[in-house]
């Protein structure tokens, strides 16, 4: 499979600031590519440039090996699902989906066939004559996606389409969207500020910060091996410590916690440890495991996501530890002291 979308050295300057700075990436055909970043990081601008609603200041967007320079949005082989969906309120569901096909001047019978096929695909058969205002949030979502997909785009761009849904529905739509993408095989470029959406659905995720891509990687790698401090802090829960000083192969944090860490980088000034990287009551014979003692201050019960809030003994540092919900640790209570270890590879310094 070839590259369907290539973005080369793309920048976008506005009057007094730069929204997108020298972004470079490519997307494989049939892939699910997410751009993850907090609001204002430039991800929407980037998407709008790919769609053709905004002009790049420098660089180039290439789709199917063809430069998109000067090609207006309606002529590009991409379709976009807008953040607020932008369904046409004066049309019913069928008319909304048929809108693009009618502009292509297809025959009525063909339009009808395609609309019904698409409605079936998104699980809305029989909704053709419903008003858009009568639909639930999730149904509107599916109509918006159907309206774009029926155009058979090379690339479907999605601008935080799940943002307006409540949490439970969002979880559900996340899985549904991933399955839909697998089934139809269209390339998706998805932008979101929700890391869980990006991690669950994507083949590749780009983390965007301040107009730049910090890292492009598979979700697993992004989580396991963040390349920058921003990625380490942004993707997933983590404990962050600032490094005060270094003594030989030990690191001392600002809160006075001394960790023995061989082969740490000299330039580092921040340290990240994921809550689930911490091992409770580790075996003393384990190699490469840094061991220390903590005091439990609070148990933050949240089902499978339960965490312990602890203080590292002999220091001022708080440390969150994931608590596996098996019977082994049922006896743990607030105020207890606990031996904890962490594999030195799981301590990330930047």
């Amino acid at each position: 499979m070839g590259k369907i979308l290539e973005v080369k050295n793309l920048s976008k300057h506005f009057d007094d600031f730069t929204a997108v700075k020298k972004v470079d990436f490519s997307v494989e055909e049939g892939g699910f590519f997410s751009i993850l970043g907090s609001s204002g990081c430039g991800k929407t601008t980037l998407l709008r440039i790919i769609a053709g609603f905004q002009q790049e200041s420098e660089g180039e967007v290439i789709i199917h090996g063809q430069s998109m320079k000067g090609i207006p949005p309606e002529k590009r082989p991409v379709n976009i699902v807008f953040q607020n969906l932008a369904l046409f309120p004066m049309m019913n569901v069928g008319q909304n989906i048929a809108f693009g096909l009618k502009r292509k001047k297809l025959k009525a019978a063909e339009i009808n066939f395609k609309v019904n096929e698409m409605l079936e695909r998104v699980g809305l058969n029989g909704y053709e004559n419903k008003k858009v205002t009568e639909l639930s949030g999730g149904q509107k979502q599916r109509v918006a996606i159907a309206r774009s997909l029926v155009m058979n785009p090379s690339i479907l761009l999605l601008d935080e389409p799940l943002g307006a849904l409540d949490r439970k529905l969002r979880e559900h739509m996340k899985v549904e969207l991933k399955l839909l993408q697998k089934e139809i095989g269209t390339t998706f470029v998805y932008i979101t500020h929700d890391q869980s959406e990006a991690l669950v659905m994507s083949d590749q995720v780009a983390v965007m910060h301040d107009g730049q891509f910090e890292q492009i990687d598979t979700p697993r790698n992004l989580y396991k091996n963040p390349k920058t401090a921003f990625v380490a802090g942004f993707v997933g829960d983590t404990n962050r410590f600032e490094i005060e000083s270094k003594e030989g192969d030990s690191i001392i944090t600002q809160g006075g916690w001394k960790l023995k860490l061989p082969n740490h980088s000299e330039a580092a000034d921040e340290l990240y440890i994921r809550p689930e990287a911490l091992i409770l009551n580790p075996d003393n014979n384990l190699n490469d495991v840094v061991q220390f003692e903590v005091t439990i201050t609070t148990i933050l019960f949240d089902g499978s996501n339960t965490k312990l809030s602890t203080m590292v003994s002999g220091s001022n540092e708080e440390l969150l530890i994931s608590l596996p919900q098996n019977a082994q640790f049922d006896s743990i209570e607030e105020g207890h002291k606990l031996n904890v270890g962490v594999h030195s590879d799981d301590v990330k310094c930047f």
Partner: protein
Amino acid sequence: MNSNSNNQSGFNITFYLLIVPVLIWLIFMIVIPHVEMFISSFLVEDDMGDMVFSFANYIEFFSQKIYWLTFVKTAAYSVGVTILAFIIAFPIAFYLTKVTSKKNAGFLMVLLLIPLWVGELVTVYGWMVLLGDHGVINHALITIGIINEPLNMLYTNFSMVVGLLYMSMLFMVIPVMSTLQSMDDSLIEAACDLGASKWDIYTKIIIPYSMPGITSGAIIVFMLVIGDYLAPNLLGGKNSLWFTEQIYNSFLQTFNWNEGAAFGFLLLMISSAIIWLALKLSGQKLEKVGS
């Protein structure tokens, strides 16, 4: 129990205080005059000088060609002026809401409102100064040398339509602006993304979306125009017969109040019928348009 009944009566007093002015207004200003007019339109003076029931006022209307010709012309021109008002007002409303900056829009809006502040009579005289045989426009055209003889613009249907448009156009701009303001720009982008041409975007997205505003604007403009007296009378002159002039003549020239009442009622009927038909044709509902 006690406090409950107190509450109840408290509610009643407020309720009646609020409803009474409305009822007084409705009964004394709208219901009674119309009933009175309706009754008097069926009365004529007999040989003895007594008022008796008769259809004579209405028969008079249908038997005199000049009356119902004026009537049809008034209705047709009012529809035409309403359509012209839409054609002129829609781009203005679109420019003010979607194209120009908020600051500019505010300033331009004030400019649009200025003619309302001086009153219709003054603006009508203003147009007379502009359009007259020795008026500003003719004078300018002759000076430049485009024409030798002054164009006959004043006291024609043209000058009348200009005056009617000028006075009523703003009432189309404002409701259309308010519906356009509520329209999300991403609808336009979505249409564009789905391959719609500029023409498609206007005819399939923007105008259908602003239909409630257009309809309420059209109703206001139509009512203002069909019931207007000043512009047809002063700018249209003798050539532009307007039905309000016939009503005026019945009441104040021939002092036949019963005939005037019948004519007034006919005007009310036709304007209501045209609005009803327009709502049916455009598929709009009065409740929706009003909100």
